[in-house]
């Protein structure tokens, strides 16, 4: 056994007490601060549930057609969505989609500026890279518990946990995309007297867009991967069905809800990827990135 060099109990107690102090003194402040997230999630969910199922199917199939101009993807999307409806998973699927969309939107708003910042300074990148590593490798239950303690069980901690897990790839890919813009093009832009903002908006972001879109695709996928865990702390949807299936040993319930998650993942993955490819050919960036 490794010898006990110091007594770690005071350290553990210190951390626990500090969290307890934050919960009692700052709990309501945190909750108020996270309220916009909840409103966003509720608004998206209400919108999806208020929209008739056939309209959503038409819209998504239409988007799939617009993204590829071929019949294969729209057909896949149509079959996938019909499966959700037929299996009586529609309402849960919409809740899950709402959680995924809210997490992705928030991640875009936060991650893209952070990615821009990282791409401009090695020092900032040096600070953020380990943080991103931590966010992606720390088991989600570790930060789930304090979040639930602060916000109480419900949709907010579920959404926050999803964002923490899903945002890092978008930050990384934004940073990568901006840095890998052809230096010759950047230099030419500089030679014509552009300022840094004009270069960012007029050259870097348009040319990095396929990579940023790949990041958004990754974020949606990772958000969907979190739905079962998120449902343990109060998010409803397909994840909750899976959880119930496990709890009641109802294999069929778990299996069909699980397939429902897969189907959603396929629909959103293929659609965002198709848009990425379309953008790449339009810009003329030949490399194909995941």
């Amino acid at each position, binding site marked *: 056994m490794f010898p006990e060099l110091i007594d770690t109990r005071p350290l553990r107690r210190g951390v626990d007490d500090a969290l307890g102090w934050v919960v009692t003194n700052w709990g309501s402040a945190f909750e108020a601060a996270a309220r916009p997230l909840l409103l966003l999630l509720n608004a998206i969910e209400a919108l999806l549930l208020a929209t008739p199922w056939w309209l959503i199917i038409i819209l998504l199939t239409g988007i799939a057609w617009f993204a590829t101009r071929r019949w294969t993807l729209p057909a896949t999307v149509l079959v996938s969505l019909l499966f959700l409806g037929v299996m009586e998973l529609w309402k849960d699927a919409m809740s899950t989609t709402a959680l995924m969309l809210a997490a992705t939107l928030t991640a875009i708003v936060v991650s893209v500026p952070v990615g821009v910042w990282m791409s401009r300074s090695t020092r900032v990148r040096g600070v953020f890279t380990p943080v991103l590593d931590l966010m992606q490798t720390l088991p989600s239950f570790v930060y789930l518990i304090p979040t639930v303690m602060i916000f109480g069980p419900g949709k907010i901690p579920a959404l926050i946990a999803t964002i923490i897990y899903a945002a890092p790839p978008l930050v990384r890919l934004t940073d990568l995309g901006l840095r890998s813009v052809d230096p*010759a093009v950047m230099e*030419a*832009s500089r030679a014509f007297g552009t300022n840094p903002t004009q270069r960012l908006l*007029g050259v870097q972001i348009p040319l990095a867009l396929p990579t940023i879109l790949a990041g958004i695709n990754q974020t949606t996928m990772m958000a969907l991967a979190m739905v079962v865990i998120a449902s343990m702390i109060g998010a409803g949807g397909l994840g909750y069905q899976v959880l119930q299936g496990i709890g009641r040993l109802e294999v069929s319930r778990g299996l069909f809800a699980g397939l429902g998650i897969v189907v959603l993942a396929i629909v959103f993955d293929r659609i965002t990827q198709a848009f990425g490819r379309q953008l790449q050919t339009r810009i*003329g960036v030949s490399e194909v990135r995941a």
Partner: protein
Amino acid sequence: MSTTHVESAIRIRDVTKIFGPAPLEALTALRGGMSKAELQAQTGHVVGLDQVSLEVAKGQIHVVMGLSGSGKSTLIRHVNRLIEPTAGEISVYGANVLEMSLEQLREYRRTRVAMVFQKFGLLPHRSVVDNVAYGLEVRGVRKLEREAEARKWIEIVGLAGYENARPRQLSGGQQQRVGLARALALDTDILLMDEAFSALDPLIRSGMQDQLVSLQKTLNKTILFITHDFDEALKIGDRVAVLKDGAVQQEGPPEEIVLNPANEHIEEFVRDVNKARAIRVRTIMETGPSEPCSIAVPADARCEDVLPLFAEHQWVGVLDASGAQIGRVTARRVIGALARHGARNPSVSTPALETV
């Protein structure tokens, strides 16, 4: 040639550029007598340019010629301060470029100097017309106006019909025409061309060179042109500076460099060069009173232009700018000049060279 009273457009004085973490300390060491090789080995600093001085007269094509690593691309980037010098002075029409604030520098880049790049540097997500209009857009010109201007220049460089194409749909030569049009559309007096034609096929390159020279005749721009191709330098340059290891080896009209290479390095270039292209009839003509010839060429015509005329004529007259005959040449004289300059060299007469 009378370049002394011509107004100078770009003046570069003692510009030194040292790449590395502590360039100023390296500069002190260099000035203290340390050699470039020692400096690089001991401190890891690379001397890009070493006390380069260059004066570019208004309305001339001034070529800086050098092999890769000679510092020529570094030099041209100092003129619009894409690279900051470690020491030295740079002025353009009397304005000190190095004292400009960031905002003044952007204004200077938007309005006074335009640049053409070896790798084109076109924006791949924009159409040809939007690329050509880019500089004007940055300058703040209204959309309709800048598009009309862009279309005009697209037409001039011979790309009419490609306005809405994307850069990747064009060949290398066409892309560089877009790059050229983009620079010309800014209508700046000064044009910086960094190996603008080096990435192109020989035939297309030759066509672009001709186009540049003829554009220059009508637009009268001041062009600083970087190349590694000595033939190109001789073909388009009013003056040529040869750069090696970050220092100017020789500077002067192309003929002077071909006729009197300053050192062995330049001698090596001159050996393979097309001398008929470098030498102008003015230098070799017979002067004195002579009867008018049935055919005549201007005084700055090149030997290569005159040679075909000897198929039908014995004498070719040489005219000054006003059209008066000031001398004449014979085939014999031209051949003699080409052979003489080819066989031996007046300034370098080293037996060592022959044994190489």
